[in-house]
Structure formats: structure tokens, C-alpha cells
């Protein structure tokens, strides 16, 4: 394939052609879903795509095809040049690319047991074993289990001289119980909603989740929520569990530190960012306990890779350091806007899409407080966990999150279960109120396979590590 890619790149002809790259992807997915003792979905997808991106003068052109024959890819390259010429008509900005070295590399994420080697029967049986115990009460109206496997093989070549092959293999699984009684509707999931948790790896990840072992608890908590009092409105000290805090990091730190959003490039769909370049290094985003890093090198996390789709190596760097805003997620064509070099976060869903800045693994570093101490030192508060709803404004300031479950904290002890907790706030105010960050024992990395951005919409696989943490005087509604 390298010979074909190199020949094609060398054949591209346009006055002032500054850069070109070719990507080819083969993306395989398998999804099994059981519901109320039946197989609801059993689907396999194989998606092949090739895309050619060119920069001619200051005009970008990109063309993609689902026909990955050499002839079709050559035609895509010609169309990319035509599209770049069209861009030139309506482009007024100067494109500056940060430097990149040439790399020849092959990389694959690790797994012990190939998820495609596990027979379908075993996958179905695993989900049925995890969901059937949850059906023992008539108030449980629906139980379901999801199991998915994902593999993307990607080949990249560029006029910078790189040729890079990468393969990621990922799995995800989870269970859910819906309880309904007397007009009350409650949902409880494990380990996360929307299909569960996702990690790079193989069948060993699924087994380690121990879905069957958690099923009775999920059922019991769904039922208990039916009778639980509503979480109160007012201002409380809020202790946020690891999985909910991971989504808080995603929405209120990951997205606003995307430099393309800050530059207004995504404003029409996803929105902009309150974090503007002039604030770099001098804006207090959170308390001194808040350290948030982008780390595309975490083994086993679905936001990890070896090179981004600009051919820039994966990196680890701070976005928030001791509470100060210090970094953006950048790519080659955006980093020069803030006088920096790309930190390697440009990715596309597949070769049929334009690479754009995406989160990698955006992690809140653990602190020093054990969970028990964090609860014990909270006089009057609420503990919330597992996301149920999420909403944030277009600048990523004004947020509201709903969680599946909450518990009272009174005089340092966990008390009654509470239902339908909703908390709201503005991003810097919230993070500045953080006065305790849980230690490494409460830290866990969570995979989110459905981060939407771009137009056409691209769904990206990202991850977030988070411990438990406490925030003072948060508004609940």
C-alpha cells in the first residue's frame, strides 16, 4: 500500500500545493443487545473508506470514497484538488501549519483475547446471565444488556514523508434496569449508561466488568429509587462520583479547551468556548487542587493512539495545572494561532471524514484524599453518581447535570438514597469550589464512544479518568 500512497501523493499537481495526505480505514463493529430475555440486536458492520486531503494555497480540499479501489482513490484525489480550488474562492484566512517530522511506524492497541474470537453464543449467554437476575420483581419493566466490539485499521501517508499504520481494538459492555411503579420511572445502569463502559482491549475487559455480579445491586437500586425521596433543591456541598465527574470533565473542560472551538471554527454547530487564547496562563479555571491533563498515551483507554491524523505523535500535557488554564488541544493548522506546535489531537471518525481536534483521554489527576475521609469531612452534603442527563451552553459555561442516584451526607456519613438529583452551575465557579480530590484508589478511566462534533457529525471515541471529588456550595434544583 505504501508504494501506491507514495505514488499518488507524488502525482498530485496543483500550483502552490503545500500539503497532502491519504488515509484508508477499515472499521469493523459488532453489537449484541439483549432485552427482557430476548436478543434485541445482533448486528455487524464493516465500513471501508479512503480520504485525500490537500492544502493548496490557503484552501483546504478533502474528498472521500467508500470504494477503496486504487482507481477510486485516485479519483478522490482529483476531486480534493477541485474542492481546494473552490475553497480558494471563499477563503480569506491564512493557513499556517506547525512542523511535523516524518515517521514510519506501525502500532496496535493490546488485547489478551480477540473479541471477535468469542462465539456469539457465549456473548449472548453472558448478557442473559447478567440481565435475567434483574427480572425477579414485577416492577422491573425492562432489563437490557449491551456488548460491543470495535476495531479500526488505519493507514496514513503524507507529503511530510510519513507512513503510519495503526489498529485499535476496543470493547464495551453494560447492563440496565428500568423500574416503573405508580407513574414513577427510574433507570439504573452498570457500569455506565448508554451501553456501559468502553476500553481498549479484548474479552478479558468484558469479564473483568463482572456484569452478572453487579446485576442484583442494579436491580435493587432501581427498585429503591422508586420509593426514594426527591433530591432537595438548594445549595449543598456536592460529592461527585468518578463516572459522573468524568462527564463533567468532558463537557466543561474537554470541549472548551479545543482550540478550534475557541477560534470560532465550530461555532455553527457545537459552539465556541469561554476559554479564549488571551486567558492562557493567567486564568484561574479551578482551585489549586484541580489538575487536568490530556494524555493520548494511557494504555487501555479508548482515547489512546500512537499518532493523530496529522501524523503527530500522541502526547501528554496539562490543560489545567494547579487550577490555572495552561493548554489547549491543538492540531497543525490551529496551534500556530497561539504560537505553539501541534500537540497531536486531530482525529477523524474514519477516512471518510476531515480530521478535526478531538479529545484524547482528558483526565482529572487524583489528589490525596481517600473517599472515606472525603465523606467523613462533609458535614451536610449530597453524593451523586452515574449520569442521567447533560446539558451545557454553547460557550461551555452554564451547565446542568442529572444523575441516576444520590445519597444524603449528614455529619460525615452517607444517609438516605435520593432520586432525580439535578445540579447546575457555571464552569469556573464550579471547579474553583473544589476543595477535595479523591486519591488514586477512587480514580478510574471511563470510555465514551459517542462524542459528537463536526459537520457532517463525527462520533469519536474518547476517555476520561476521574477520582471522586467534592465541590462546595453547589446549586441543586
Amino acid at each position: 500500500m505504501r508504494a501506491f500512497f507514495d505514488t499518488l501523493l507524488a502525482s498530485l499537481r496543483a500550483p502552490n500545493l503545500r500539503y497532502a495526505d491519504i488515509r484508508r480505514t477499515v472499521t469493523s463493529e459488532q453489537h449484541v443487545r439483549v432485552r427482557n430475555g430476548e436478543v434485541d440486536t445482533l448486528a455487524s458492520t464493516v465500513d471501508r473508506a479512503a480520504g485525500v486531503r490537500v492544502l493548496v494555497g490557503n484552501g483546504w480540499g478533502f474528498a472521500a470514497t467508500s470504494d477503496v479501489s486504487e482507481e477510486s482513490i485516485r479519483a478522490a484525489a482529483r476531486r480534493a484538488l477541485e474542492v481546494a480550488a473552490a475553497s480558494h474562492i471563499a477563503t480569506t484566512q491564512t493557513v499556517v501549519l506547525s512542523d511535523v517530522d516524518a515517521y514510519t511506524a506501525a502500532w496496535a492497541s493490546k488485547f489478551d483475547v480477540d473479541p471477535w474470537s468469542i462465539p456469539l453464543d457465549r456473548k449472548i449467554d453472558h448478557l442473559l446471565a447478567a440481565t435475567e437476575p434483574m427480572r425477579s420483581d414485577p416492577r422491573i419493566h425492562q432489563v437490557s444488556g449491551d456488548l460491543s466490539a470495535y476495531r479500526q485499521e488505519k493507514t496514513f501517508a503524507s507529503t511530510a514523508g510519513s507512513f503510519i499504520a495503526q489498529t485499535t481494538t476496543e470493547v464495551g459492555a453494560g447492563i440496565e434496569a428500568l423500574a416503573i411503579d405508580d407513574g414513577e420511572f427510574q433507570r439504573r445502569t452498570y457500569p455506565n449508561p448508554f451501553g456501559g463502559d468502553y476500553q481498549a482491549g479484548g474479552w478479558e475487559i468484558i469479564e473483568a466488568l463482572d456484569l452478572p455480579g453487579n446485576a442484583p445491586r442494579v436491580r435493587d437500586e432501581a427498585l429503591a429509587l422508586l420509593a426514594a425521596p426527591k433530591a432537595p433543591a438548594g445549595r449543598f456541598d456536592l460529592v461527585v462520583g468518578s463516572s459522573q465527574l468524568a462527564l463533567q470533565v468532558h463537557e466543561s473542560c474537554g470541549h472548551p479547551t479545543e482550540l478550534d472551538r475557541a477560534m470560532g471554527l465550530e461555532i455553527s454547530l457545537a459552539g465556541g468556548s469561554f476559554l479564549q487564547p488571551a486567558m492562557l496562563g493567567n486564568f484561574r479555571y479551578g482551585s489549586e487542587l484541580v489538575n487536568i491533563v490530556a494524555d493520548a498515551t494511557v494504555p487501555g483507554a479508548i482515547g489512546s493512539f500512537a499518532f493523530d491524523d496529522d501524523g503527530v505523535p500522541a502526547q501528554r500535557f496539562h490543560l489545567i495545572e494547579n487550577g490555572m488554564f495552561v493548554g489547549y488541544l491543538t492540531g497543525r493548522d490551529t496551534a500556530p494561532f497561539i504560537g505553539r506546535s501541534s500537540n497531536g489531537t486531530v482525529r477523524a471518525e474514519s477516512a471518510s471524514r476531515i480530521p478535526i481536534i478531538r479529545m484524547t483521554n482528558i483526565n482529572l489527576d487524583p489528589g490525596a484524599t481517600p473517599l472515606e475521609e472525603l465523606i467523613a469531612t462533609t458535614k451536610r452534603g449530597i453524593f451523586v453518581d452515574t449520569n442521567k442527563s447533560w446539558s451545557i451552553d454553547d460557550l461551555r459555561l452554564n451547565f446542568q447535570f442529572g444523575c441516576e442516584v444520590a445519597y444524603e451526607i449528614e455529619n460525615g456519613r452517607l444517609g438516605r438514597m435520593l432520586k432525580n438529583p439535578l445540579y447546575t452551575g457555571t464552569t469556573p465557579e464550579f471547579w474553583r469550589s473544589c476543595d477535595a480530590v479523591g486519591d488514586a484508589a477512587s480514580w478510574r478511566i471511563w470510555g465514551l464512544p459517542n462524542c459528537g462534533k463536526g459537520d457532517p457529525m463525527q462520533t469519536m471515541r474518547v476517555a476520561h479518568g476521574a477520582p471522586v471529588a467534592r465541590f462546595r456550595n453547589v446549586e441543586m434544583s
Partner: protein
Amino acid sequence: MRDERASFDVLDRALRLAGADEADAVFASTDHNISRFANSSVHQNMSELSAWLKLRVVVNGAVGTAATTSFDDDELARTAELAREAAKHSGALPGFRGLYRDGEPLPNVVTFDAGAAAIAPAGKARDLRTMFDRGREHGVLFAGSYATGASSIACANTHGVRRYATLTACDATVIALRGDASGYATAIDRGPLDVLALGDEATLKATLCEGRNETLPPGAYDVILEPPCTAEVLEWMNMITFSGQSFEDGSSFFVDNVGKQLLGANFTVADDAVDPNFLPFPFDLEGMPKRRVALIENGVVRTPVVDKVYADRLGLPPTANGWSLGGGEHGTVFHGSVAGGEATREELIRSTKLGIWVTRFNYVNGLLEPKTALMTGTTRDGTFLVRDGEVVARLPNLRWTQSMVEAFSAIDGLTRDRRRVGAWYNAFGGTIAPVLKVGGWRFSS
């Protein structure tokens, strides 16, 4: 885009290789071009030629699906094998009476516009350049996207049902920015769009009440909602209220309320793919002819939408809403049509003593309490204070949390004019809605 013969060649080979009791398949091919712009400059510009096939097989009453983007016989055979393997391990679907087999005639609707199909990237760029230049005269910068596409959609099954249609779509979103103020306009059509008019509309919203900024304390206010607001709310109701899945699992407020007057008598919403003024399409992907299906009629709950599997399971009449060949939501509204009233937007504003005129919502979430369709979101790109019947000031973006069951029981007026709004996940239609005036919408910040 493939012609009818090429499309059925792929489908016929797939069905021949299916090796099942029954099978159906969809083959879609799309030529798509999208130009994205920001700071009045095109920064992303792409052309995509894509095609995909999805095959569903039924073996002993059990279903399996597989999809691919390669169509040689070997790959189709592999795809069929994957689907059969899936069906072999699935159980028989309760109540399933088999794939659609009646083959009734399709509604005669126009889905293709040759002018739209012929739009080239250079022509779009020239239109955008003109819009950018016009914006600079007003001190306005533009961001947004302008997409054009032509597709062929074919589906067939082993009972002899064969459907084919071509369709075009032009879809544009324009945001005008001046200082901290922004305005928004959007349109979708089977034919070409007037992008310059969208630029003018967005500019008007960005410059309206310039320098007059006010705030409001949290509370309940009358709102005048532009069609993109209603479209975003309906996207969530599609999942939590209208779908066969939400009806079956009990989370939809339709459950136990079919036939009951639950909402205001002036609120009617239908799935309507045959309205020539909307974005017509003649069949769903199971091959059933589209027809108008009332979901809520004059406030009375009528029916969820279902695919064939869920029509059989729930004992409901088929509604021709199978867009995913199994799985998914088991019924999706792709042509949400809210009936209009008799008012004009100006009349709705004039009749408002104290209220908020909202251009669009941002990041709505409908999962708070599905039984009341409680949702939250914020406003953006043009939120205005209405006092004593006049638009008097710009407001900051506001957060709201509101039950749609309550809101659609409190509609004080609807415009006669309706507007089409596209959605990123919906290649076949969108939403058409009037401007709504709703009483007592709850804002929290």
C-alpha cells in the same frame, strides 16, 4: 448516486446470497458536498461519494443484520454469512409475522431536483463569498455550513417488494456574529437554497436591539419559539415519546394515554413524508409506502411510530417508520410536522405583555423525566425581551427546564407560516413547524 439498475443489481445479489427464510436489504449511494465556514472564510470543504448495503435475514423467526460498504459477490456472501450467524443465535421475535409483503403503490411525490444535484463546490463558494462580502458591509462575520447532496435509495425483499427513489437535499445554517451578539438562520429544501437570504436573516437577528441589553430574573415567562426550537424538542420526543421502543418499555407518556386529550387542542404533530411542501419521500426502508400518521391530533394522543417488527409485537397498525432494518428505536419520526395556526409572528409578539422571543435552543437534553417529557437546554444566537408587544432588548443566553407535556398544553398561538429545519442524523426529512407562543416557560438562570 447509482441508477435503478445498478442499485437493484447489488440488492438482488445480496438477497440471492442471503440463504434465509426471508430477507430484505437497503442499498444507498450518496454524492455529498459540504462547505463549512467561520470568520467569513471557508475552512473545511469536502466531497464524499459513499455507498452502503444493509442486509437483514430472518431464520426461524429470528433476525440478524449485517452491513458493508463493498459489494462484490465475495463480500456480499460474507455479509450474508454474518447476518445468518446473528439470526441463528437470536431467538424468534415475539409476534413477528414476517417481512412486509403487500407491495402497495407508492405515493407520487417529487424527491429530486436536478438544479440541486448540479450545484458544484465552486458555485457554492461564489455564493458564500458574496454573503461574506455583504456581511462585512454590516460589520458582521459569518459561520456555518452549506451542504448539498444527491442520493439514491433502494430497498427490496424476498417477497418481491422493490423500491427505488432518488433524492436531493440542500441544507444550510448561517450564524452572523457582531461583537458579542449573534443571529441565526437555517433552511433545508429538496431544491437550491437562497444562502444570501439566510445571511440577511441572520444579520438582522445579530444586529436587532443593538446596544440594548437587559436581564431577567429566573421564573416562568411567555415564550415565542422559532421553528428550530420546536425541531430540537421534537428530536428528543422522537426518542422518549414517539418511538416504538419507548412505548414498549413504558417510558413514553403515550403509554396508557392513547386516545386521551393530554395536550392542548391547538397542538397537532404528525409524521408526514407526503406533504409536497415539506421534504417528501415515498417509502420507509422496509418498503412500506409513506402516509401521513398523526401522532398527536388536536391534543389527543394517537399512536407511536413503529417498524414492522414492533407493529406486530405491539399489535399496532404499521406506520411505515422502519428506518434501520431492526434494532434502533423500532420506529423513528423522520418527517415531524407540527400543524400551523392562524397568526403571524408579529401578532404573537404584539400580544405578549412580558415574554422572551427565542431563535434557537442549544444542547437540549430530554432524559430528565421522560414521563412528563421534562427537558433542559439553553437559548442561543438571538434571545430577545418582549415588553408590551414590542421587541425591546437583547437578553443573554438563558437556561430553561420545562415539561413538554405542560408546554404543549399551554400554547397561546401558532403562526400560519411554517418552516423546514434539518437534523444531522436525518437524511430523509427533518421537521416543519410554525412559530409557537407558549405560556409559562420555566427559566432557571
